[in-house]
């Protein structure tokens, strides 16, 4: 592609790359979903056609490395990136183990130069990498895994619980998915850091975002920036007519939802974010709510709480296995007010860790854990190490809890 300067020669090559990459993704991830829905449609309109379903094992991390290879091809096409001639480096870019399974989704221009550099052992890299890994383990194993059982209980039989208990379940899921995925990201970033490779940050205290737009600048950053650069901007971004812009926003959010999985719930999840984004933008223009707030000020916290509540309700679609299950949760939230149902058993230590995690989010607003900890005096730093190590070993959930994002 790089050798050709004319679009008519380059474009077919790009298309081959896009079709083969997206084709594989579609084949493994969306084939059954598409077949099931087409079969339903055929049934409805009376066509006797049964598209067979396939029993595939989804290749691990396919959504993540497909996006990496796509970005590489597109960048080479537009001349933003020189083509890599060394197959080994390209293969390493695609399969660099710390981020292979669930990101962060790296750009070729950022990762490969680092892979080509000579890396000597660095004490700072080791310490900072280990700090990130240990904090990642803490939030995955102590927070996410312990919340997991409680959330599962709610979603397994929500009708047993009162509205208040269901609300607790929704609240815990917001933190479960956050700690599960950001925990993984920290472990990945820390592992790479030990080897001298700096991966991009994937989370930045998203539940302290003042609106949905900011939330997506802080949540799964590598994915949202990918969609911004390779879908939103090519669609015209915001430099288009208003209706087209609304269309662009909705497309980006819906595609981002579908990226997560082949299910209507993910599509609705993405679409809801798009709709709320548009409503917030409109309201902001109308009422001028958005302005600079001092961090932790009343205005900041009020807006963050508002955003968190919205996101928590939208997560219901992400967690539910079907649209009907999600709607049932919302119905029960209303119907079970005052219902003396079963009570969730939440051990005292879990509340302590849960509140500690929330406090740590406040503390780390716009900061990185490794950098923050490096500035804490030695005695405090070692107390934090002791607390984290002890908590991970003694309070980790001991059942088998795979990372949620490994399924994508």
């Amino acid at each position, binding site marked *: 592609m790089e050798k050709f300067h004319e679009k008519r020669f380059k474009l077919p090559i790009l298309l081959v790359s896009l079709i083969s990459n997206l084709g594989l993704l579609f084949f493994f991830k969306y084939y059954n979903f598409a077949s099931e829905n087409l079969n339903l449609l055929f049934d409805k309109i009376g066509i006797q056609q049964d598209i067979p379903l396939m029993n595939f094992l989804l290749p691990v991390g396919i959504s993540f490395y497909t996006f990496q290879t796509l970005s590489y091809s597109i960048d080479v096409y537009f001349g933003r990136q020189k083509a890599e001639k060394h197959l080994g480096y390209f293969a390493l870019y695609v399969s660099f183990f710390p981020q292979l399974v669930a990101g962060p989704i790296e750009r070729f221009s950022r990762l490969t130069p680092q892979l080509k550099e000579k890396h000597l052992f660095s*004490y700072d890299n080791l*310490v900072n990498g280990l700090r990130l890994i240990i904090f990642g383990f803490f939030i995955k*194993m102590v927070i996410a895994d312990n919340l997991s059982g409680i959330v599962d209980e709610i979603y397994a039989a929500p009708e047993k619980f009162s509205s208040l208990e269901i609300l607790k379940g929704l609240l815990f899921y917001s933190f479960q998915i956050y700690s599960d995925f950001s925990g993984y990201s920290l472990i990945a970033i820390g592992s790479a850091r030990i080897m001298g490779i700096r991966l991009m940050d994937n989370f930045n205290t998203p539940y302290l975002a003042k609106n949905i737009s900011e939330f997506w600048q802080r949540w799964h950053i590598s994915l949202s920036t990918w969609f911004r650069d390779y879908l939103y901007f090519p669609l015209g971004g915001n430099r288009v007519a208003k209706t087209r812009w609304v269309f662009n926003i909705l497309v980006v959010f819906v595609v981002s939802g579908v990226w997560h999985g082949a299910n209507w719930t993910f599509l609705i999840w993405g679409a809801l974010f798009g709709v709320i984004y548009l409503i917030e933008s409109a309201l902001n223009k109308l009422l001028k709510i958005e302005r600079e707030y001092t961090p932790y000020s009343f205005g900041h916290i009020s807006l963050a709480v508002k955003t968190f509540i919205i996101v928590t309700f939208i997560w219901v679609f992400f967690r539910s296995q079907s649209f009907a299950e999600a709607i049932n949760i919302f119905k029960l939230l209303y119907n079970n007010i005052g219902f003396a149902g079963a009570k969730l058993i939440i051990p005292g230590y879990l509340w302590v860790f849960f509140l500690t995690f929330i406090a740590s989010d406040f503390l780390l607003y716009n900061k990185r854990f490794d950098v923050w900890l490096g500035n804490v005096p030695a005695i405090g730093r*070692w107390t934090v*190490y*002791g607390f984290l*190590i*002890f908590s*991970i*070993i*003694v309070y*980790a959930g*001991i059942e*088998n809890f795979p990372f949620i994002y490994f399924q994508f």
Partner: protein
Amino acid sequence: MLKKLSLKIVLLLVLLIVLNFVYKTWFYESDLQKNAELINLVRAVPNDADIVYIGESSNITFRGDDIDKRPISAFIGDYFPGLKTYDITKPASHAGIYKVLLENIPVESKVKTIVVTLNLRSFDAQWIYSNLETSLQKSLVLIKPYPPLFNRFLLSFKVFDIKSDSERVKEYRAKWAEDEFHMPGNFQFRNVIEWDRWMSNNGIKDSNGNYDLPQTDLACHFIKSFGFQLDTLKNPRISDFNAIIELARKRNWNLVFNLLAENTGKAGELVGNDLTDLMNENVQILENYYSRKGVVVVNNLNQVGNDQFVDQNWTTEHYAELGRRTVAKNVALALKHWYGDFYKEVHCDSRYQTSFFNDCDKGIIWGQMQTLTTDMAHSGEKSSMTGAGNDYSITFEYPLKVIPDSLKKTINVEFWLHQPSLNHDAKLVIQASGQGFHDYWNGYDIKSIVKDINVWARYNISISVPDSIKQADLIKIYVLNQSKEKIYIDDFKILVRD
């Protein structure tokens, strides 16, 4: 940099030592009770025990019509009244588990002799790669001989043999396919899969010449459980037993391997001599192998008849009373080697009992022992919890026919119960079954006799024994509570009298 790094490593080690102390002092015990409850089996053995019998469900399983329902280990103890014999029984366990449990016997213990159950079936791939293994291995992690915090680390990071059920199935299927038979003559099957398939396709025929599904299933079980040729170099069970021998050597224990009886009669009848020859050959290999290592091996393989096997449609080592007594006697005779002066012959007459008592604490085995709980108790620490899904209380079972008719005119039942309300229809049930009469079932209302709630109250009733059930093979007495109310039962007393 090296100095800086070394200092940090030292600091980290100090931190870990402090954390280990904190964990061991304030957290370890509750973690043990939550995740490694089987340590209590070892703790129940006092330090002054002479003989410890370690085994799986074969030790404690009984048949309802057994007059004496005690375990094999207790029958062994009868031969040595002057010695203290205890057991460590963990159902579904094997040598790998025994080894870890035995390591936990305190060094200050005066135990002299260990009798280890050696189950031929446990050498088969299906048991080695059993789906129970994950939970068994998990329950051992915290009692491994490492610092407690390190054990907890292993548990948290799942550093034990953790596999899904389907992975286990794949493992033993692969092993079955891989292990080919090397038999003299023209043995027609290459491996156990072929043998099992042949049996399944051809089947066992009943007296009318029809395919007998239950008997064919049983034949297939026999083939899958015992159709292997023991490889003493590769079979992991061999190394588990070797580790026990090594441990016994270090701790100066006398060691007996109690090779359990299998239903070779039935195996021969259904599958043929090829299988029973294979079983005998494998047992011979084990006997020779371990005898050479100085272990006393008691070979019970062919010692128990088909009628003494409790499970007639499955390959287990669960024996009725006579079977357990036979195994116990063989072990006792082997123990004479060290305890000749203590040995006392036991005569097992056709005795019968008329008075029975279970306080839920002293390990007296009745049916439905899984209902025992420490939630509350009238005496001791445990009671039997009924209701909220637990329909049956601990259940008394006895062959009523062995008691002379003149001594069984009335049954007096007494127990203590704790009920939260009277919103239930719990009953005391007397149930009888046997050959030559219709099954008998009668329920006696409980709340009409005991009306006290939230306190322990005594329930007592005398029931005339109908003539129709006097020759019952089995009588069962229990509390049936199908309500949501939890009713606790304790100190269950039954007196059969004239």
